[in-house]
Structure formats: C-alpha cells, structure tokens
C-alpha cells in the first residue's frame, strides 16, 4: 500500500498563536481518512496546508513524495491538478449556473469540444444526483445541493486526492447520509484518496478507513473507527460520546469566576 500524502513534524502558527504542532500524518492511497476534532482544533488548516493555500512554519508535506511547492508557483498549480477540494460552504461561483460551475475546471484546463464537455458535466452531475438542476443558479438551490454541486466540481478532473472540509456541517440527516455515501462511492469509483475533516462522529466513522483525533493542534489519538469507538483515551471518549465536560473544559480558560466577581485576592 503506497502513500499519497505524508505530513512530517509540521508546525504552523498565525503570528504568535500556534495552530498545529509536531503534526505527523500519513494518507495511504485509495483510503478515506478522517481528521476529527473540536472547532478550532486546526483541522481545516491541515487541508489548506496540503493544498498550498498557506505554508507551514516548519516541517514537510509531501504529495507523491514531492514537497508541496511554494505559493503561486507553476509547480504548485501542477500539484493542484491532482487535488480536488470541497469547501465547507461549497464556494460555488455565484455568477455561474450549476452547469457552468462544474464545467469551470474543464474549460480552464482542457480544450474539449462543447458536446463532449456537456456530456462530462452531465455525468458528474448525474453522480451527485443533480443532473436536472444543471440550469439553476447557486442562489436557487439548498445548502446540501450546493455542497453536492461543489463535490461534482471538485471531482470534474478526476483528482487523485479529494479533500472535504466539514462536508456534513449544517446538513439535515438525509442530506448527511447522502453526502457520506457519495464520499465513499466517489473515492472507490475514482480510485482516489479522500481526506475528510469533520466533527460528525457517526457519519465519519461509517465511511472512514482510519481516523486521526486532533486537539489543540496535536494528534492525540489515531486508529480505525472500530478502535476509536471503544478507545479509553479521555479526549476521544469525551468526543465520541459527546460529553459536555472532560479534558475539553466547558469554560474558556482564563480568570476564575471568583476573580471576575472580585471575591478573592486575584482582582485589584
């Protein structure tokens, strides 16, 4: 089993605020790997780093053994031809129809005749069940549909790597199940590799081959979904069982309540 993406000892910070530290991850080919963690744990940042939208402070990310190239370089655009990314809110081009959104990467990167392009786009839309929505604009479709259109657009050029940023956030249970199935089916049908960033335990565990748990920018646990479901790691247990308090405190860290109310010597 070969590796498609590899992250080694990566550090990243926004100014003085560290986001990710000592991060080491492996994404094998043809697998669906989930990165899970609470909001603000740095999950999405990992996808942006792999995509080369931001650069790490230290450490390395490799795609097929080659480091991710520097921003705006021709080499990076070459590497991105092998990636597709689904943004949290779809990021559809609001001035284009559903059809033109999916056609966009094809028009930009190929010189296909219009009839062939039409058929390709229709096949991608068929795969996400939205062939009949081709003529609508992004403002006329629901959030879940927008996500599926974005998915069709992300896989328009049959990428080797598909990255999903919170694909389940804000979806109703039916759309959630539909999206989860799509992610797994597309991964297997295209023979690609998927990285799934999510905090939705149920859906992610159902389709992932391997799971990384992230807390405060560090990997705190990893394993197959089955292993994680019965893990006794305190963070994983809190997360999987959705407990209100545990290693992740309910209260934002800082002064104590007594200090804020001026009841102890802490406040002047």
């Amino acid at each position: 089993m070969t590796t498609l993406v590899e992250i080694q000892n990566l550090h990243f910070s926004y100014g003085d605020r560290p986001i990710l530290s000592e991060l080491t991850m492996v994404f094998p080919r043809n697998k669906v790997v989930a990165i899970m963690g609470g909001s603000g744990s740095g999950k999405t940042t990992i996808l942006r780093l792999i995509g080369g939208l931001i650069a790490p402070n230290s450490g390395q990310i490799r795609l097929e053994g080659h480091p991710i190239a520097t921003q705006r370089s021709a080499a990076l655009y070459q590497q991105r031809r092998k990636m597709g990314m689904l943004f949290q809110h779809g990021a559809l081009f609001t001035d284009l129809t559903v059809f033109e959104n999916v056609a966009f990467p094809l028009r930009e990167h190929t010189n296909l005749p219009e009839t062939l392009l039409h058929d390709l786009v229709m096949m991608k839309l068929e795969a996400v069940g939205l062939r009949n929505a081709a003529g609508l604009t992004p403002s006329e479709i629901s959030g879940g549909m927008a996500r599926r259109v974005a998915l069709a657009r992300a896989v328009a050029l049959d990428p080797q790597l598909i990255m999903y940023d919170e694909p389940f956030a804000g979806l109703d249970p039916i759309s959630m199940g539909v999206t989860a199935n799509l992610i797994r089916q597309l991964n297997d049908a295209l023979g690609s590799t998927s990285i799934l960033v999510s905090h939705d335990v149920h859906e992610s565990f159902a389709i992932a081959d391997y799971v990384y748990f992230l807390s405060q920018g560090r990997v705190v646990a990893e394993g197959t979904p089955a292993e994680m479901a019965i893990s006794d790691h305190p963070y994983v247990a809190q997360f999987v069982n959705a407990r209100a308090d545990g290693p992740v405190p309910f209260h934002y860290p800082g002064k104590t309540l007594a200090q804020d109310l001026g009841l102890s010597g802490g406040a002047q």
Partner: protein
Amino acid sequence: MTVFLTSLGAVVRTWLAELGLAFRTLFAIMMSGLGLWRRPRLITDQIHFIGNYSLVIILVSGLFVGFVLGYQGYYTLNRYGSEQALGLLVALSLTRELGPVVTALLFAGRAGTSLTAEIGLMKAGEQLDAMEMMAVNPLQRVLAPRFIAGIIAMPILAALFTAMGVFGGYLVGVQLIGVDEGAFWSQMQGGVDVWEDIGNGVIKSIVFGFAATFIALYQGFQAKPTPEGVARATTRTVVLSSLIVLWLDFVLTALMFK
C-alpha cells in the same frame, strides 16, 4: 518622546509594508495579465460589464456638466463680449480637465465599488480559494481581465462624457441662450488641438483608469473576508481613488502645462 517616535516608526513601517504589498500585487496582476492574450474574451466581457456599469451615470452627468458649463461660460464670456468663444471654452474644459477627472470620479463610485465588493465577496465566499484549488490563478482569471478592461474602458467613457458635455453646452449656449451656432462650432474646431488637448486628456484618463481600477481590485483582494471588511474596503475604494485621481490630475496637469 520615545513613545511618540516608536509609534511614528510603527505607522511608517506599516504604511511602507502596505505600499510594498500593493506594488507587488500590481506587478503580479500585470505579469499574469500577459498570459491573457490567448483569451481576449475574458477582457472583452469585462469591458462590456464595466462599461455598462458606468454608462448611464456617465452620459447623464456629462449632459448636466455641459448644461452648467454653457451657463457659467456664457456668464463670464459675456462680460468681455466674447460669447462666441463659448464652444471653445466648453470643449477645452471638458477634454483637458472635466472629462477625464469627473469620469474617473464617477467610475470609482460606480464601477470601482462594484469591483471591490465583487472581489471581496468572492474572497469571503472562499471562491478565490476554490479557484486556487482548481489550479486556476485568481490573479490571472479574475483580477487581470478586470484591470485591463478598466484601463481600456476609462478613455472610452471619458470620450462619451466629453461628447455629451459638448452637446449639453450646445443645447444651453446655442439653443437656449442664443449664441451664434457657426461661431460656437468653428471656434471649437479652430481652437482645440488634437495632441495638446485631446491627446493629453486621453493620457489622463488612461492613467486614471489604471489607478482607479487597481485600487478597486486591490481593496477587494485585500479585504477582510467578513461583511464589515468588504464594507470598509468599498468605502476605502471611493475615498482613495478620488484622492489619488485628483492628486494625479494635479501632477499630470503640471507636467503637461506649457
């Protein structure tokens, strides 16, 4: 004193860094624009859009500015008994000064704000990031065509503004007040120089198009991806473009003055 110097230094440094970033972005847009010769459609579409944004406001404003020039010019010239020169006064004011400047100010308010808001909202909606991830450079696909289109559209809009202004001056001066029609047109024809007056006006409007479009695009591109960020960027576009257009106008007029 030290505190004052430190904060002054910080302000100057931030300002220089901002200026450096702006020029780097400008350079990047111009370089990526070179690759557009293979896709002229991207540029012509934008000329169509940007031109259409501002067309009505430019035509109407031109007409009214012409009306006012007719009245005010007649008021002054009449004192010296030289109201026959009204056509010349209207034409020179418009081609040398009012055409390029007022067009640029209106352009900044109409097309410039649209561009800033459009780019800012594309950024807020992660559309620019999505484009990056599709291996498409947004500088080349989104910013460069708009930049080139703005530079091309501005002189055309200024010419239309000037033409409407001359027409407005004619309506008021000749039709309403009764200045001699022959004198109005022949003085204008004899007194306006193609290179000195019209040429310099065109150069001005190209420079203004460059500045106003770039400011609009840059503000959108650097906007904080939030509603307040886009709102602030849009305001800055109008304020900055207006000030820079007026400042550039002074510099160019001084350089062209003989």
